[in-house]
């Protein structure tokens, strides 16, 4: 069994830390406090790593597992930060029938992460997205603002090489 605790190295600023404490304090004791606290905490950190969830669990006096259960239930919450290069693969209908599933699989395999995760060096994050309006180029992926279309799995190596893989 492997834990998802260890991901990208977590570092927070004193400002972030203080902000989180304020968020917890303002909701403590209220019924249903967890959702707003998680939403606001994600606004502060961009994601909800182990350290942030443990602080919330302790602050709201609820088990860490309950926090984690809610975080993994809702798609809006992320356990991982976004990388320096944000890769999105369109799994919308047109791209999917044109084979974007294979592109997505290839990226997961090459980067050694699953969708939604970030490489431990913080360089790449990978997500699936819905239609980006470039169906004529299907299947498409984006790296930050750069769009790559009419992809084949074999194109992935060359594209990643441009970003230093």
């Amino acid at each position, binding site marked *: *069994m*492997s*834990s*998802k*605790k260890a991901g990208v190295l977590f570092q927070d600023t004193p400002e972030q830390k203080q902000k989180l404490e304020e968020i917890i304090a303002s909701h403590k004791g209220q019924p249903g406090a967890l959702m707003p606290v998680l939403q606001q905490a994600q606004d502060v950190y961009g994601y909800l790593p*182990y350290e942030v*969830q*443990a602080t919330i*669990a*302790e602050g709201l006096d*609820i*088990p*860490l*597992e*309950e*926090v*984690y*259960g809610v975080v*993994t*239930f*809702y798609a809006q919450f992320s356990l991982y930060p976004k990388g320096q290069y944000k890769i999105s693969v369109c799994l919308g209908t047109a791209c999917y029938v044109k084979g974007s599933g294979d592109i997505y699989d290839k990226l997961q395999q090459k980067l050694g992460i699953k969708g939604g995760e970030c490489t431990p060096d913080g360089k790449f994050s990978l997500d699936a997205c819905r239609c980006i309006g470039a169906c004529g180029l299907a299947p498409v992926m984006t790296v930050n603002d750069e769009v790559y279309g009419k992809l084949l799995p074999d194109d992935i190596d060359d594209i990643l090489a441009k970003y230093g893989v």
Partner: protein
Amino acid sequence: MEMVNLKVNNIPVSVAPGTTVLEAARQAGVQIPTLCYLKDINEIGACRICVVEVKGARGLVTACVYPVTEGMEVFTNTKKVRDARRGNLELLLSCHDKNCLACVKSGQCEFQKLCKDYGVEDVDAFKGERIQYEIDDSAPHMIRDNNKCILCRRCAAVCRKWQDVGVIGANERGFNTNISCAFETPLGETSCVSCGQCIVACPTGALSEKDQTKEVWDALADPEKVVLVQTAPATRVTIGEAFGMPIGTNAEGKMVAALRRLGFAKVFDTNFAADLTIMEEANELVERIQNGGALPMITSCSPGWIKYCEHYFPEFIPNLSTCKSPQQMFGAVAKTWYAKQIGVDPKNIVMVSIMPCTAKKFEVGRDNESAAGVPDVDIALTTRELARMIETAGLDFTSLPDEDYDAPLGIDTGAGLIFGATGGVMEAALRTAADWLTGGNASGDALVYSDVRGTEGIKEATYTIGDLTLKVAVCSGLANAKKVLRAVKEGKADYQFIEIMACPGGCVNGGGQPFQPASVRNFVDLKALRAKALYNTDATMELRKSHENPAIKKLYEEFLEKPGSHVAHEVLHTSYVARPKY
């Protein structure tokens, strides 16, 4: 009170407002099957096995959470209902490891029974994608196999609501939903307290104790080893359940006979060590009160509670009695004093214990529990594992003769016996303290401390013994322990002595006890019936005070000198360590 009138399968019944269809049906003598439902703990209507037809309702309704209304007509056994239940079972089976022949729960599995009852013929009716889960065997006491999990959440509910631990719960969503720990951390690396309440709540074989019966069989077959066994107070009043005896039967004599036939060299009683615990703990309490030690003093018999304290309330570690638990005291005495008596090297003694508890499997591996330089106890089996060994050996348990424990470590008192129920340790301690502090010799009704008896989660009492006024609390279930500890911490309570047991109701309701399906647990107070068997036996015993146990007296004369002596500390006391919460 205005009653609600309804008909269940055309049988008229009047029930209180707010009653569920499930309970109303029961009052009409109609059983509705359930799977995810645990009364007061897990009422989520998720598994949809309890569906019934209600005249006028749009679809089938879940009886476990559906409240009754005036004039309601309920039908629990129509074709539509039976087909729906069977369909739901087939859907659950589509993601279930159907290796029933080799499953530890086979024959006692609630899911298996329902499949049989509802005539599921094709176990692959909905064959499709399945997630293969890794088996989590990281904890010393249990195994989690999510391939057999049906997501009823009964385990998560007891962990969170009874124990206020909440280390397991539902993660992810939809098809990926699974019961696991935060961040998929292996259970053994979390702040799980090993109480095993999740195991007895599980309707399938997804959760089970780590079976160590093979190790015991191997030891019994080894001619070099002297294999001793001790049985905890609460095991004798539950072992019979595994062989169809009524709940609350004291089957002590048959259990002793069975252990002897399994081949143990001597069959001893943890009750003896419970008496020894009282000698040391009562002395420790008096010393703390006289010398200004840390108060309140808190009992240390329950390893689930100890682990909870170390993870969640480390600031109370100085308050924990330094006494080892009875299991460990027993092993310590067996491998020091008794080993010398019989002239056997402690290295060649295999100390097996039969416990109502899964946390005992964790406890045997604790530091500073090796009085003879080897672990005090080698293998802690649950009551269930003993039942399994008895079945393997082909013993007809209910026909066995009643036999007595071996001397000297099988000699006990009623005080040691009632350790198995919440309040028992407190009462045993009070019996001894009363005689010691007043120089008296109480007997009969004066030995009954009814304020600390009963199955309530938190009990309080104040006793005046000689010059001493003793304010005590007794709690069972860790959610209750948390409340009491918070009150002490905030200065809202000033007890001198607190008894805490991890499991609700104490050891009689331990995580290692025989399975009872939810259909029994929801309507019978298991812990009360089992405890009653202990108290009834105590009332008939000649010796009911620990300090009157002749074997204990002899042990102090020959070896331990007096309670709290240097040698007693070396052999019978231990230490604790703060553990991380996350």
